């Protein structure tokens, strides 16, 4: 019985429902003490002096500043511009400056309040406009961390000749990941034994790389172990390197005593990364029949004070900015700018939700201007197999966008509902509307990313006749363990019960790359499939495995192999699919091995008394290649849509002087059970030959489509165009009252 395609229950769920699962806050080592962080007071300034106040037994407390760092004071990632501890200057509010550790947490808190930073404030840059104006330069020579240009055809000429040109500007706010488990790490570090950290994280080898640089240690003395991780969504992609570094520095200075740092909710919100805020300007040229002839897109994201992953977020956002449409003349200028705010990082969708929000919202505005229904404008411009996306990539997938759209319209009862709402909206104070969005999401790393990563996985047969799947891909709730075991079992032709997926530990697993970019199932899964086939081949070649064989035969063969020849191990290393070329300099070519495609529909209700918009029902139709586990896959879609509903309507980060003012769960509003509507999930499956059993990426896809669909539905309900998320009641009220003022 093949397991791929069936709803195998989550492997680690028994531990999760009994309370046995061990998260970082549950993890303790003998003699462990606690660490806390003293942070910068404002968005930008110079640190004159660090004073330790009175009434604290400082001799008992481990105090670490930038001077105590044995290696380089950077959190190594891409540009290495972010210090682990601010030394002379600080560039954002809540930047780490001093670390303290002690076993008594109450004393530690008193001590934290007694560390005084004498600072000289400097003028901060806080918005995208300020950054672009560059009156204060805080990054490079012009505050621009990275820029990209995608160009095809002649946009200016096409705009001149177009029958209709429509412009628009769209904004998205920062978003807090709000994983329910805050960040945390435990570290043991000594010059003799090196550094070991255990914690809540997505990417063990990112943390290892950062620690090696900070402590000048070789990989074999820098060990990173993942614990059960209570949600990530990208928020535990780069920041764990920072906390791991802090815990390790404290342990190092304290003589190797284990040190635990677990943030409370407020500290997590204040200090850790957010989704990049964005601003996108569109100029779109059309022919009378609705054909798109020019797309001119200016996409800017706010990266915060240090570059972290901004350039990669920018590249994905830029490539997705023109969506699933065919257009001969396209210009996309993408820029990531620096501001004196806490660095922005990875967040589910990685730049694509921002640029796709702008495009899909804009196309509804364009459709109105062109006098076409929104679905019709899209239908006329969908890209088809064999045609080229804006970056020049030829679409090879077996995608049929008109069919996806048709399905979405049909399952949502689009026409019937629209007519009904048109009638009902004449009366009372409730307005209803429908909106849709059409989009794509590239699977895996952008461009040559996967080739550079060259991920490796290993499968190991044991003397007990079991098979261990060794990867650095982390289970963070999305189902890695379960899916990997399904893939390995089917590729080996055995039952799932003999497969083990141990938790990543850099001392025991190869580097299969980070757990990001919807790459785990499709790309790492494919490597597992390949390694499994080669493991099976080894057994066949040794004549240990009869054909056909049962799981029992396989176990016996494994055991025999180990007995006779020692270790049974097969590895696989990433090879790009044939015919894939990416030119990083010209920013053209095959940006991704494959894309997932989707059409989403939202039904929204707006109360004219409170201006609150609510999603009443949501339909998702997507083509994601082969679905490995339908229950887990649906869970990803539902969870992603819920997170995107939050981003679209509720989740507002209130910045005050570059600091998150609403840094509590009471004030940062995510949806509850009462705010999430029924979400319908339909999969179309067009297997992708280079993904595990035909799988493509699906974890991030559901973050891309909901926001524009929801705001399009608001437009439909109210006749008023809202061009920013979150569309809080205050935003909707302001838009309506501007409209009132005009008439």
């Amino acid at each position, binding site marked *: 019985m093949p397991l791929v395609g069936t709803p195998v229950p989550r492997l680690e769920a028994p531990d999760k429902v009994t309370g046995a699962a061990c998260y970082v806050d549950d993890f303790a080592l003998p003699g462990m003490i606690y660490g806390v962080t003293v942070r910068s007071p404002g968005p930008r300034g110079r640190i004159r002096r660090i004073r330790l106040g009175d009434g604290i037994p400082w001799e008992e407390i481990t105090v670490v500043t930038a001077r105590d760092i044995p290696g380089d004071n950077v959190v190594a990632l891409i540009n290495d511009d972010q210090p682990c501890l601010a030394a002379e200057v600080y560039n954002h509010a809540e930047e780490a400056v001093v670390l303290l550790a002690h076993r008594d947490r*109450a004393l530690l808190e008193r001590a934290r309040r007694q560390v005084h930073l004498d600072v000289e404030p400097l003028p901060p840059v806080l918005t995208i406009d300020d950054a672009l104006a560059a009156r204060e330069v805080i990054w490079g020579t012009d505050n621009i961390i990275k820029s990209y240009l995608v160009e095809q055809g002649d946009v200016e000429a096409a705009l001149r000749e177009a029958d209709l040109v429509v412009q628009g500007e769209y904004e998205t706010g920062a978003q807090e990941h709000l994983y329910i488990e805050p960040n945390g790490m435990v570290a043991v570090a000594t010059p003799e034994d090196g550094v070991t950290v255990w914690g809540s994280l997505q990417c063990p080898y990112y943390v290892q790389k950062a620690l090696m640089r900070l402590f000048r240690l070789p990989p074999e003395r820098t060990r990173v172990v993942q614990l059960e991780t209570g949600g990530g969504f990208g928020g535990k992609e780069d920041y764990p390197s920072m906390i791991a570094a802090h815990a390790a520095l404290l342990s190092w200075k304290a003589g190797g005593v284990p040190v635990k740092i677990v943030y409370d909710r407020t500290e997590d919100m204040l200090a850790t990364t957010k989704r990049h805020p964005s601003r996108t300007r569109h100029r779109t040229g059309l022919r009378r029949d609705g054909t798109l002839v020019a797309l001119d897109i200016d996409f800017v994201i706010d990266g915060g004070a240090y570059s972290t992953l901004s350039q990669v977020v920018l590249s994905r956002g830029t490539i997705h900015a023109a969506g699933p449409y065919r257009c001969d003349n396209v210009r996309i200028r993408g820029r990531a700018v620096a501001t004196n705010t806490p660095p922005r990082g990875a967040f589910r969708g990685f730049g694509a939700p921002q640029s796709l929000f702008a495009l899909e919202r804009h196309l509804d505005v364009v459709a109105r201007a062109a006098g076409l229904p929104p679905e019709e404008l899209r239908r006329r411009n969908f890209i088809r197999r064999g045609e080229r996306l804006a970056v020049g990539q030829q679409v090879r997938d077996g995608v049929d966008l008109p069919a996806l759209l048709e399905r979405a319209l049909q399952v949502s009862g689009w026409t019937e509902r629209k007519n009904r709402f048109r009638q009902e909206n004449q009366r009372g104070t409730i307005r209803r509307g429908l909106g849709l969005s059409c989009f794509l999401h590239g699977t895996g790393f952008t461009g040559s990313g996967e080739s550079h990563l060259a991920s490796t996985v290993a499968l190991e047969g044991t003397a007990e006749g079991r098979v261990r799947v060794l990867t650095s891909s982390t289970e963070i709730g999305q189902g890695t363990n379960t899916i990997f075991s399904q893939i390995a079992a089917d590729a080996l032709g055995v039952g799932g019960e003999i497969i083990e997926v141990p938790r990543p530990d850099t001392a025991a697993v190869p580097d299969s790359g980070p757990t990001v970019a919807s790459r785990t199932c499709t790309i790492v899964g494919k490597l597992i499939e390949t390694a499994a086939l080669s493991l099976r081949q080894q057994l066949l070649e040794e004549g240990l495995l009869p054909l056909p064989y049962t799981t029992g035969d396989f176990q016996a063969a494994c055991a025999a192999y180990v007995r006779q020849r020692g270790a049974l191990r097969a590895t696989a290393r990433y090879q790009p699919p044939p015919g894939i070329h990416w030119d990083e300099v010209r920013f053209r070519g095959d940006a991704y091995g494959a894309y997932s495609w989707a059409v989403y529909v939202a039904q929204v209700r707006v109360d004219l*008394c*409170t201006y609150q918009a609510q999603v009443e029902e949501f339909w998702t139709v997507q083509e994601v290649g082969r679905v490995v586990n339908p229950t887990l896959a649906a869970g990803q879609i539902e969870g992603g849509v819920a997170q995107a509903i939050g981003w679209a309507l509720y989740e507002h980060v209130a910045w005050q002087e570059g600091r998150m003012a609403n840094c509590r769960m009471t004030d940062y509003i995510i949806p*509850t059970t009462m705010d999430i509507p029924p979400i319908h999930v339909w999969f179309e499956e067009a297997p992708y030959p280079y993904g595990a059993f035909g799988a493509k990426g699906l974890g991030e896809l559901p973050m891309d489509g909901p926001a524009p669909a929801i705001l399009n539905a608001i437009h439909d309900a109210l006749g008023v165009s809202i061009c920013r998320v979150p569309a809080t*009641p*205050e935003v909707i009220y302001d838009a309506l009252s501007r409209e009132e003022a005009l008439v």
Partner: protein
Amino acid sequence: MRFDVAAYKLRTPQSVQEALAWMAAEPGALRPLAGGTDLMVLLAAGKLPGGQFVNLWPLRELRTIEVTSDSVTLGALTTYSDVQAHPVLQQEFPMLVEAARQTGGWAIQNRGTLGGNIGNASPAADSPPALLCYDAELELRSAQGSRWLPYHGFHTGYRQTLLRPDEIIARLRLPRRRGQRLHCYRKVGPRQAQAISKVCFAGCADLEDGRLVSVRIALGGVAPTVVRCPETEHILAAATSPAALDEAAARASLSRQMAPIDDIRSTARYRRRVAENLLGQFVAVLRLHPGWATP
């Protein structure tokens, strides 16, 4: 961990009397702690000053609901879950039940108390507007004895009340009314559940012989305290027929009785407008009511 538990002394009395005696002995030194749903939040945030607290929660005598022919008297420890479960409250004081239903989530409703909601004195609290409309009275008790005050007027400024440092809120009394009464309660928060109000509106009107005899309106979230809006009440109560309800004048007067602010939760503009819209809904409820005398 932003707090030091050793800095707090929580004393559990055997009776209300004992609690009051402790409070009398050291006036101002002991703060009451009921369900803890406000105080424990402050504790964790490192914002609760150290000192002594008196543990009211175990005092069952403060968790009673007594019904007589002309009033319902609720102990200060009455929780939101208690309120929702009570048949007389459901029947006659639906706005209080609605406020309770919309306060926090289930776990909060099991622990949050009416006394705590009043004692906490937040201008955004949800039960006070209902209590104001129902002409609630409070019993404040100290070792010296007890005094009854109208709830209206109890909040004297932002988080300021008439409670003396040696007193606790012991009970609340809601006068019953047999005649026809209209109720209109609406909480507007950022989401459908577990939300702090941006604006909260309570309105009720008593009808006798097909005519309005009294209108009461109270608002939360739009001023430094929860407020009654007497000017608006008079304008509406003056109407002798549905057609005579002067919504425009009522809206204008309501606006004069508010002083909303911009904060991290909302804007002054929004709060003002929504409060007016909610008044508009109340007026519509009054207008559509079938109980008016036909001329």
